[in-house]
Structure formats: C-alpha cells, structure tokens
C-alpha cells in the first residue's frame, strides 16, 4: 500500500514539474544533448557552434508568451536586462536571433534549416523534431 502511494506521489510530482515547452532541433541533427549554459550562449549569440554544426537560433516575436517563458525559465534574464544586452551587442556588430512569427513557421524553419534551434510547446513537437531541454 505504501509503495503504491509512493509511486502515485512520484508520478504526480513528475507531471507537476515536467515542462510545458521544449527547446528543439531537427531530429536528423547529430546533437542529442545541450547544457543550459550552451542554450543560453546560443540565444545570446555568444556561441556559434555545437561540435562542428553552425547553429541558427530562432526566436518567437517579442510579444509572444512562449518567448517570455523561454527568457524567464531558460535564459533566466529580465526583458529589460536582455534589452540592455542587445543594445551593447548592436555596438559590437552582433544582432539578435532571427524571428519566426508563429509556432508553425518556427517548426517549419527548424525542420528545413540545418543547425536551427528554437522552442515550442511540447504538445506540438512531432517526430521530425528532437527535444533538447524542457521548461
């Protein structure tokens, strides 16, 4: 009885703490794992490669709730601080990741561009995409 309760509690906890969204790449990619710092660096254009693959980070529009969640939970930075960061990068000749206007265009872009990396609701991830990080 106690073991059953324990299993139920563990399953409940797993469902509570698993993410709604995921950082994804094309499932044909050689990349199977990224650290949180590597993801942060890719989306801040501080890193360009994973192994020998030139990466292409893709953002949702600034008004997107998904992007807000990504910045809060993955980049762990406020919009104000991120804005300061990109203003400084503009002077260094570095521009932010390109933007795809919707989840479906983000999905299509990642499927078609080698090295493209973005984020989507887990519910919309299909077999053509590989989840690297849940949030």
């Amino acid at each position: 009885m106690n073991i059953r309760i324990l299993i139920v509690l563990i399953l409940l906890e797993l469902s509570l703490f698993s993410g709604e969204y995921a950082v994804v790449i094309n499932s044909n990619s050689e990349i199977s794992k990224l650290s949180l710092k590597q993801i942060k660096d890719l989306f801040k254009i501080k890193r360009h490669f994973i192994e020998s693959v030139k990466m292409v980070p893709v953002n949702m529009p600034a008004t997107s709730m998904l992007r807000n969640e990504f910045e809060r939970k993955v980049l762990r930075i406020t919009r104000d601080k991120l804005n300061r960061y990109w203003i400084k990068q503009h002077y260094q000749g570095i521009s932010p990741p390109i933007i795809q206007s919707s989840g479906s265009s983000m999905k299509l872009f990642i499927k078609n561009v080698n090295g493209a990396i973005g984020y989507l609701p887990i519910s919309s991830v299909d077999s053509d995409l590989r989840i690297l990080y849940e949030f």
Partner: protein
Amino acid sequence: MKIIICFLVVFVFFLRADEYQLGHGVRLSDELHIGGYFSFDYLDSDVKRQFRLDDVALLAYGSLSSKFSYLVELEAAPFYVKNYTTDISTTDTTFHYERIYLNYTHSEMFNIRIGKQITPIGYWNLEAINVLRDTSSNPLYSNKMFPKLLTGIDVHGFLDDENTLQYHLFIQNNDDLDQDYININNDYFVGASVEYEVMPEFEFGGSIGNYITKEDNKNVKFLQLDAKYDSYPFLFQTEFAYNYVNHKNIDSKSHQSAGYTQGLYHLNTQHAVIGRYEYYDDKARGDTNHIGVIGYSYRPMYSISIKAEYQINSDSKFSKSIISFSVLF
C-alpha cells in the same frame, strides 16, 4: 552643414522605420544592419569651460555568409567644440574609420578578425562610447596605457567546452589605418589576453603585450589585469596596467602605471549612482594623478544616457564637472 542634415535624415529614417526600437539599429537584411550614435557634453573646471558635440558616428554590419561577417564604423570626433574660456569654436566634420574589419568564424576555438578594430583588452576599452559607459569621462588608464585600436589581426576563441575561458592573440605590424585618429600612434603592436568567467556574475582576466610608438620611438611592454562583478543592483569593475617603457631615442628606461576601480548602484532600472577612484603615474614625466569621481546616471531608455559627474583631481585646478547626453540608435 550638409553632413549634419544627412545625419539627421538617417536618424529620422530610423525613428520612422517599422518596428524600430531605439538602440537596436535597423536590420535591412542579413547582410546589412545600420545604426549610429552621438553625444554632447559640457565641461566646467578652473582652467576650461567648454561644450562639445563629441561623437557623431554611423555603423554598418552584417553577415556575408555563414562564416564571414563585417563591420564598418565611421566617426567624427570632436565634431564641434565651443571653448567658452578662450571664446573659440572649432568644427571638424572629417569622418574617420573608427573600425573596419572582416570576421571569419571557424569554430568556438578559432576565429579571425582582420582590419581596424577595438583592441581586445579589458572592459572599458570594449565599450568605448559615451552612451554605453556609466560616466561621461574615461579614466586616464583607458587613454594612456595601450593603443585603443588595432589595425591588424586578432585570433580569438574559447579554450573550453563551456565557453568560460576566452583568449585573444593579436598583432599589428604596420601603420594604423588612420594615424590621426588613435590615442597612441604605433607601427608595431602584439599582445595576448585571456578572460575567465567564474560564474555569470563574476569574471577576471589579463593581458600582456608590446608596442612601439611611431613619433617618439618608445618600446613599451605592458601587463594589464581586470575583474568585474555584475549582480543587479551592484556593478563593480576594476582594471590596472603597468608599462615598462624603453625610450629608444634617448636611451632611457622608465615605467608608468594606471588603474581604476568603479562601483555602480542601480536605484532602479533608470537611475544609478557611480563612484570611481583612478590613478595615473608616469615616472618619466613625473606626472602623478589621483582622481575621485562621483556621478549620477539617468537612462529614460537604455539607449539614451544622461549623466552628471564631479571629478576631484589631486591637482585641484583640474577638478571638474561634466554633464553629457548621448544616444545610440
């Protein structure tokens, strides 16, 4: 006058562009982003009272392919100066190449930048424009110890998988691209720098190098150290440099050193107070300065900076007040 009108036309074009955010430039295509900046300042001391339109600059950059990118920056500084002490006004509308370079991105470990570029040393030197700084003035360290710009090659990258240890190896073995527009005119400059990110909030590093000045043929070997702690609402940074100088023309040797420590406290996202101590010591000239700076920074937006400061100099006639207004667009 034509240049000012052109500059204003570009600035207004930016403000009217779709979805334009001040401070981020305009992305016309992957190959071409454009932007610029300008700054005004007013200085008041016992020996000088002046108004300047100090920087007027335009920059363009972009990707040429997945491996190649470029940046061009043209700057006129000081564009206009009105000296109220002597009642003389000067205007210099000549635009100079502040930066013009090509990047080759090969891997995380190995990349090349070739052309005229900012010397990759420390923190202050890399954010060399008024609008990005937290004070209107620069510490003497930033102007006196090494050439701020390099016309040569910089090989750079990261030495570890997590990109926490960054290196630069750079060399110049020719004249500067614009010899009238550099703090220390030189025809030989070689150096190496490393920066280690201990945690996202804290990093430290240092540089070594050697340069030969063009006019007075000084052979200078330098050592530079830096550290930065950035955790909102606090920001501390410190830099120090020591130069061993061989005055080849007069067969004499001397040394100079300079450094600063600056602390900033954000009252909120727009307002901050700043304190800085800096010193400069040149044994050959018997020139020693200790300077304390207290300042206030107001940014209605991050790309618009309004600053005021008071500098207390150990030579009191050089103590001064400075206010400035600067914009990055």
